[in-house]
């Protein structure tokens, strides 16, 4: 086996730690815990303002539950492909990892595309960011989530391209695991949003 000095993408990943958890993984968990409160505040704002819009359109006027269910499923599926990507890199199968990373990114893009289509339709039906309280809270909540997804897609595609330079290997599979943690979190948040915003019935 050739001796090669592989560049570590993340620092201090192999050192012993007091808790046993690597630094970067612990950092990601803490960040995600912090992000829970971010979405908590957004979702709370939405819930507190539910039913308080003075003028329409109202949620039942615009929501297309079947459509959003499909795009939710797409996002859910991307978590599966993410798991497969991680499993691949952990066993050293880089081509498979790239395949599943790309698949995850594509599914994520499909989800975002679905959101774009959905919001454009809402807009044409008269619901903008400034129309009423519903528009305000809805777009900002889903917009923050969509931004998180977009950042995730960027990270996935970065991993994908960096792997061609030998910077993502079995040795630093944890990098993929950490991005995976983030991706699953974004997925779980969507489940909560979908349930609270779309599925729970509201008034007119």
């Amino acid at each position: 086996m050739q001796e090669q000095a592989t560049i570590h993408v993340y620092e201090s990943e192999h050192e012993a730690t007091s808790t046993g958890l690597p630094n970067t993984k612990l950092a990601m968990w803490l960040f995600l815990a912090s992000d829970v409160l971010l979405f908590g505040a957004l979702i709370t704002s939405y819930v507190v303002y539910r039913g308080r819009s003075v003028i329409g359109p109202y949620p039942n006027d615009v929501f297309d539950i079947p459509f959003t269910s499909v795009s939710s499923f797409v996002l859910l599926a991307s978590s599966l492909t993410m798991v497969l990507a991680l499993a691949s890199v952990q066993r050293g199968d880089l081509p498979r990892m790239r395949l599943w990373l790309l698949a995850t990114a594509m599914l994520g893009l499909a989800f975002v595309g679905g959101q774009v289509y959905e919001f454009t339709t809402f807009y044409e039906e008269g619901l903008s960011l400034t129309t009423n309280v519903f528009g305000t809270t809805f777009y900002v909540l889903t917009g923050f989530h969509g931004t998180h997804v977009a950042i995730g897609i960027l990270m996935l595609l970065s991993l994908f391209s960096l792997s061609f330079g030998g910077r993502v290997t079995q040795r630093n599979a944890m990098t993929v695991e950490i991005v995976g943690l983030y991706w699953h979190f974004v997925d779980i948040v969507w489940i909560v949003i979908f349930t609270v915003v779309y599925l729970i019935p509201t008034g007119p």
Partner: protein
Amino acid sequence: MASVTVPADGRAGGLLRRPTATAGFWSWITTVDHKKIGILYGVTAFAFFIVGGVEALLIRVQLAQPDQALLSPSVYNEIFTMHGITMVFLVVMPLSAAFVNYLVPLMIGARDVAFPRLNALSYWLFLFAGVFIYSSWFLGGAPNGGWFGYAPNAVLDPTRGMTFYAIGLLMAGVASTVSAINIAVTILNMRAPGMTLFRMPVFVWMSLVVQFLLAFSLPIITIALFQLLFDKRFGTHFFDSVAGADPVLWQHLFWLFGHPEVYILILPAMGIVSEILPTFARKPLFGYQFVVFSGIAIGFIGFGVWVHHMYAVGLGPIANTAFGISTIIIAVPTGVKIFNWLGTMWKGDLTFPTPMLFAVGFVAMFVIGGLSGVTHSVVPADYQQTDTYYIVAHFHYVLFGGAIFGLFGGLYYWWPKVFGRKLNEGLGKVHFWLMLIGFNLTFGPMHVLGLQGMPRRIQTYPEELGLTFWNLVSTVGAFIIALAVLLFLINVAVTQRKPKAMEADPWDARTLEWLTTSPPPEHNFDEIPTVHALDEAWHRKYVETAPGRVVPVPAGGSGAAAGGSQGHGVHLPSPSYYPVVVSLGVLLLAYGVVFSWWLAAAGAVVMLAGLYAWVLEPSVE
């Protein structure tokens, strides 16, 4: 499979070559060394302290007499707003961060924090956030809606000030959130062998609690600030009652952050006091576990009291009762700390150099602030007290008499470690007494002013209200404080001229940072110490002969891990340009959001490019 081989010295090509300076101006710009970053935080925070102090003096001059118009209402509103923003976000938080950054790795026996470049990023983002907010004076008006920025006033104000407020605080918030994760990982993961959680110094414990408070409270205000920004910039309806929304939502979100924030402001100073008192009593901290647990309890309960800032909003008697009770409850762990500090001094061998004066001053002043806080928790009494100078008195007693006194104590205590010289004792003592007298003259009378009818945030008051005398006294006190601070600056100037000639442990202290040289070498310790007990450094100097009785270890005993050698074989993280680059990108983005979307896009590009370069640049070794 292609792979990239890289020469061992880390140069992977011109663009990504890491800087190498270890001294001089550029070494400060590209440093990732927690000690240098700590000093940067400290100097910057102190500069903002002077600015915030000038703002306070302006307020006091305007209020010294009734019916004055030295400062018009619009200017006055900007000044008291900026005073609050400065002192909370640009002084106490970063000054605490200075101590946390410098000391925590040393106290846990580590060589640096978990993510050194991220550490630098936090500093630069903070600096640029402060610059951004202050630049608003020249770019359309400073924030003028109070540091608390209540909607709808903050939304409806026609100037740009509150837009700068929202964006500036978002920047500072990101800096602190990133730092919180960094420090938390450092404390949890990078302790020296043998240092269990319950062998950590109290300062480290308080720092750990603070990082969790930051990580969980900042996201909430982040959302509130975005909502405010969107309402102002895009016409959304988050706080628009005409559209059916509720202005009080802002208050809930703000105070859900704002209350944990006050514990963020005070716990580091409490940690400092918990280190100083044992040293100058020559006894360990009384009730270590109880002090630690009370800090954790305060952290938790601190998330459950926020409505006590809103008793008069009209949430109803049930809500007011529930939060009145939770606020009363939080007084208990606070009291536990105070009693344990008294217990530390009890039967000690007390000396009172300047650090000890400030530590004892902290206890004395914090008790007053805490007691007035208890009177606020009596909800109906608060219906009279809220929004008056009685509240101003309370929080200045805990934040100035508490946090600032504690932080000054820390400055005097650790100055020899950081800079290799002790601050002048004579000047220090005068500084302390002047500051104590000035402080009490300034804020003591405010209790009376508040109870006798002076609301907050008023640019002036009529003669008939009978508030003149104590306002004048308060103003005189403020100038005495200013004199005291000036004395401190003179002390610093005089001290820094002296040569560096300080032993490792000038105070005969207890914690690991005193095992290494003053100042420490870049790699902190030649050999990472192994920890066998709480107050490890003390136990290396003194051995127990009978329960509670110690004698010095005979000469030549297990001594300090002095940093005499050059630290062979220790690899430290290299400096990096990219924390500054990324921060500059964020700054451009910030201005862009106010002025021009093209500028914002440019800023985003710089930020992203900087992030990618950061990820790709070669690491050490």
